[in-house]
């Protein structure tokens, strides 16, 4: 008689998909995530892939991974370690064994576990018999062979047939997590809408995987993750880059200013360009420049002509754009610069995450050249901060640098969809035709921002440029006192933005032993670790900054109420140093990680405990 696998209900589970770059693990991971979102799980995902498109097959360098954390409870990170690992070959197993929990389920494609593949993965002994997998629930599935025989009837060659292996795996996972396989099927029907034969082959592989998992007795436990209690409304699973692109579209619609993105392809920011390139139906213009400089300059030109000018890039691109950002500073034009940070310096770690562009964003230009600097902190709130960056750029007539990172950009989470009409309105400081009081450097008395007169408007012809201009009238001026006035005014203009951004929140008690300080994309890990210690009755709170220049007005004050301040960031201490320069009377402890990887909750908790006990 067949043993029936028991179903256990779990609050959360972490699944890691790992295989060769060409094994379709990113796709399967996204499919599984979307399915989980669809049934109402909270989730957070993290793709981890090599910079090479197709590194040598079967090697550690070629392993591409996708981790997804789904939960009935609230999920803030992709999880430190996995409960289920899919390893398509020995290299994938080897690279991920240290990232799985004791007792985890490991699904391997046994067809790839042979001496040839062991050699490629630098295994000296057979990992299936060397004892390294003792304590894990290893499911040895002949994925390659079963997929090939399943898809034979569709007349695919082996290479194409093997590309459906990931659907066999997906099928197994649907069974393992008691998911409705129809959702997976419709995902495939949408994906391969132009190729009915591919739909058939992939769907066949999906069902074959499901039946296989159901039939074999190797899987003793199935998981049931009930829907999260996220409240009511419309939801979707969204990546940071997509949320960024959509936030820009919303800002364009709300401000009535056409969106113009000038961008040059660069990892990990390219998806923003790609996403907006397909949004011509919403009047979005994308201009793929010949380089980073052309891209930002085109955006500045568009902004001069009345568009919401935006450029998207990553660290090396931001370095190239520095001079042009200075031009937007002195011409006081709205401009949004999105920097999806990656490991640096130079080309560094293009596909890995880091927070090491903060100083570049704040100070990486010649002259006194202040601009607004802000950071998104979750994949979904990239939408809100892209919107907010656009709003502040337009209303304050200034460049705004929005920092996201590779982790936010490629990671995804469940997002409650807002209504555009509920977003803060955006009021472009436009000028009426023939306004006799218009001068290029006349300013709004409160914000100190100048007004936006557009070429084509009657009676407002004027000239702007990179040379210093006379206050109010805007003629070229080399007058020393005028330069000082203009420099101070430009700085004051940015400082006054603090009046229009929210106060810094503290998560937890406003007083305590330890204030954990973070900024940007580390939010998920920091809040999870802080929450867990709060449950252990530690007097610990979190302040996660989104607004960096200017800082929220209450920043100095909140530091007063804690015995210790620990600034955690994925760099050598750039935000800590910034805070030291702004509020020098406090002692800022640091916790830094520069491995191209996000913080683990376990390492954060250990550090917090150590600091609390010192």
């Amino acid at each position: 008689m067949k043993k029936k696998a028991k179903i256990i209900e779990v609050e959360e589970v972490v699944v890691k998909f790992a295989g060769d770059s060409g094994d379709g693990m990113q796709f399967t991971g996204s499919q599984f995530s979307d399915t989980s979102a669809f049934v109402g799980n909270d989730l957070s995902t993290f793709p981890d892939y090599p910079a090479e498109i197709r590194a040598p097959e079967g090697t550690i360098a070629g392993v591409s991974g996708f981790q997804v954390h789904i939960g009935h409870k609230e999920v803030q990170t992709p999880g430190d370690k996995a409960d289920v690992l899919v390893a398509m070959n020995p290299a994938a197993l080897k690279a991920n064994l240290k990232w799985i929990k004791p007792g985890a389920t490991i699904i391997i494609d046994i067809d790839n576990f042979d001496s040839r593949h062991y050699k490629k993965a630098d295994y000296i002994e057979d990992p299936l018999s060397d004892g390294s997998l003792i304590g894990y629930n290893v499911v040895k599935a002949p994925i390659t062979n079963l997929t090939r025989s399943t898809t034979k009837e569709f007349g695919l060659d082996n290479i194409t047939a093997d590309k459906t292996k990931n659907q066999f795996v997906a099928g197994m996972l649907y069974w393992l997590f008691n998911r409705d396989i129809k959702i997976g099927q419709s995902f495939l029907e949408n994906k391969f809408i132009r190729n009915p034969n591919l739909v058939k082959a992939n769907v066949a592989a999906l069902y074959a995987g499901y039946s296989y998992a159901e039939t074999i007795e190797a899987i003793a436990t199935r998981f049931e993750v009930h829907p999260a209690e996220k409240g009511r409304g419309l939801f979707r699973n969204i990546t940071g880059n997509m949320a960024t692109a959509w936030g820009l579209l919303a800002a364009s619609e709300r401000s009535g200013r056409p969106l113009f993105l000038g961008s040059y392809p660069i990892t990990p920011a390219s998806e923003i360009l790609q996403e907006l390139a397909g949004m011509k139906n919403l009047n979005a213009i994308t201009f793929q420049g010949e380089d980073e400089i052309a891209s930002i300059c085109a955006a500045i030109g568009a902004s001069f002509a009345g568009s919401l000018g935006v450029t998207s890039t990553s660290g090396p691109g931001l370095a190239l754009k520095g001079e042009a950002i200075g031009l937007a500073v002195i011409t006081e034009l709205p401009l949004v610069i999105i920097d999806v940070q990656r490991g640096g310096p130079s080309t560094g770690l293009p596909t890995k995450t880091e927070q090491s562009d903060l100083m570049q964003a704040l100070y990486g230009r010649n002259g006194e050249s202040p601009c607004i600097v802000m950071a998104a902190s979750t994949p979904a709130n990239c939408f809100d901060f892209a919107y907010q960056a656009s709003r502040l750029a337009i209303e304050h007539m200034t460049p705004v640098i929005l920092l996201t990172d590779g982790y936010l950009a490629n990671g995804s989470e469940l997002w409650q969809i807002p209504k555009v009409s509920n977003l803060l309105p955006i009021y472009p400081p436009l000028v009426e035709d023939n306004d006799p009081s218009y001068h290029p450097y006349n300013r709004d008395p409160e914000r100190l921002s100048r007004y936006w007169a557009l070429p084509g408007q009657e009676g407002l012809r004027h000239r702007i440029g990179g040379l210093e201009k006379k206050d109010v009238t805007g003629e070229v001026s080399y007058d020393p006192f005028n330069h000082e006035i203009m420099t101070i005014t430009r700085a004051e203009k940015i400082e006054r933005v603090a009046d229009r951004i929210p106060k810094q929140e503290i998560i937890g008690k406003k007083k305590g032993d330890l204030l954990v300080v973070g900024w940007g994309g580390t939010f998920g890990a920091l809040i999870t670790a802080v929450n867990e210690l709060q449950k252990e009755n530690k007097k610990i709170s979190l302040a996660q900054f989104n607004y960096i220049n200017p800082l929220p007005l209450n920043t100095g004050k909140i530091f007063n109420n804690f015995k210790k301040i620990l600034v955690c960031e994925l760099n050598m201490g750039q935000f800590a140093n910034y805070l030291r320069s702004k509020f020098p009377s406090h002692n800022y402890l640091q916790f830094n990680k520069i491995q191209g990887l996000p913080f683990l909750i376990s390492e954060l908790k250990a550090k917090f405990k150590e600091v609390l006990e010192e």
Partner: protein
Amino acid sequence: MKGKEQEQVTSIQDFKLDGSVKWCAGCGAHAVLSAVQKALPETHIKKENVVFVSGIGCSSRFPYYINTYGFHSLHGRAFAIASGIKVSNPNLSVWVVTGDGDAMAIGGNHFIHILRRNININILLFNNKIYGLTKGQYSPTTPRGSITKSSPDGTIENPFLPGELAMGANGTFYARVVDSNPKMMKDVLVEAARHKGTSLVEILQNCVIFNNKVHSEITGKDVKDDNQIYLEHGKPMIFGKNRDKGLVQTDSRFKVVRIGEDGISGKDILVHDAHNPDDTRAYMLSRMTLPEYPVAMGIIRAWQSSVYEDMLYKQIQEARNKSKIKCVDDLLTSGNAFKIG
């Protein structure tokens, strides 16, 4: 013509600006400014629709001296800034003012790419073969061997011919004029404005301080008729003080011949075809140098091809017609969105 939907009668006065023009006395740029101010009324473009964009250098101060919208930008980047302006608002008549350093050196990349895209912008390239604003270093168009402040022993670099680069980059309009011939400048500028696509006008300009008489071999009163050939579409390529010299083609090269000698008559002289999609002859004409050939002047190439922003806005219109997603709310709730509760 650019901005034709809003035509307007203007005069030279409409484009004059109070305040002093700060180029050196005797600089060729003064003549260009005057020619532009005369050409603009002939285009009937509404004065508010004209935008001058420049990079950095002596020539790039131009926007400060003309009463239009103006943007004095970054060294080499005027092409990119202008592209953003024009693509963002195709009704504008956008002009780039640049120099041989600005366009050929630091802006070389943007220069070839604006031509390749064929965005409807007019480029005025002031070529004085020297860096003026930084006081006399050699530029990418400085002839090899020239002694300058940064080449005390003579440059060892081969110079660019802007026209050659323009042809290599699929440029659709290329003209060459000299600063000492205001009428020629004005006529060519009007045609440049009328051309749909990127119009490149190379202006051989004198730098009275750092490279005086740089073009005198071409522009000198006593030599200009023999050393220049003024090209007009559909007319035979004849030149010389006595209008007795012309161009014929033998094998793959041009040859200068005398009409009335060796059995050559006026009918044998090649007729200039600026509109030819094939740019081979335009390329050959743009490369002609002294002493073997006269230097080609006037409109060397004016080929009507598809224009970047026309194609872009066509795609936008098609996407708007086709897509069910009409606003951002539609987008946010499209595809894999689902309801909870």
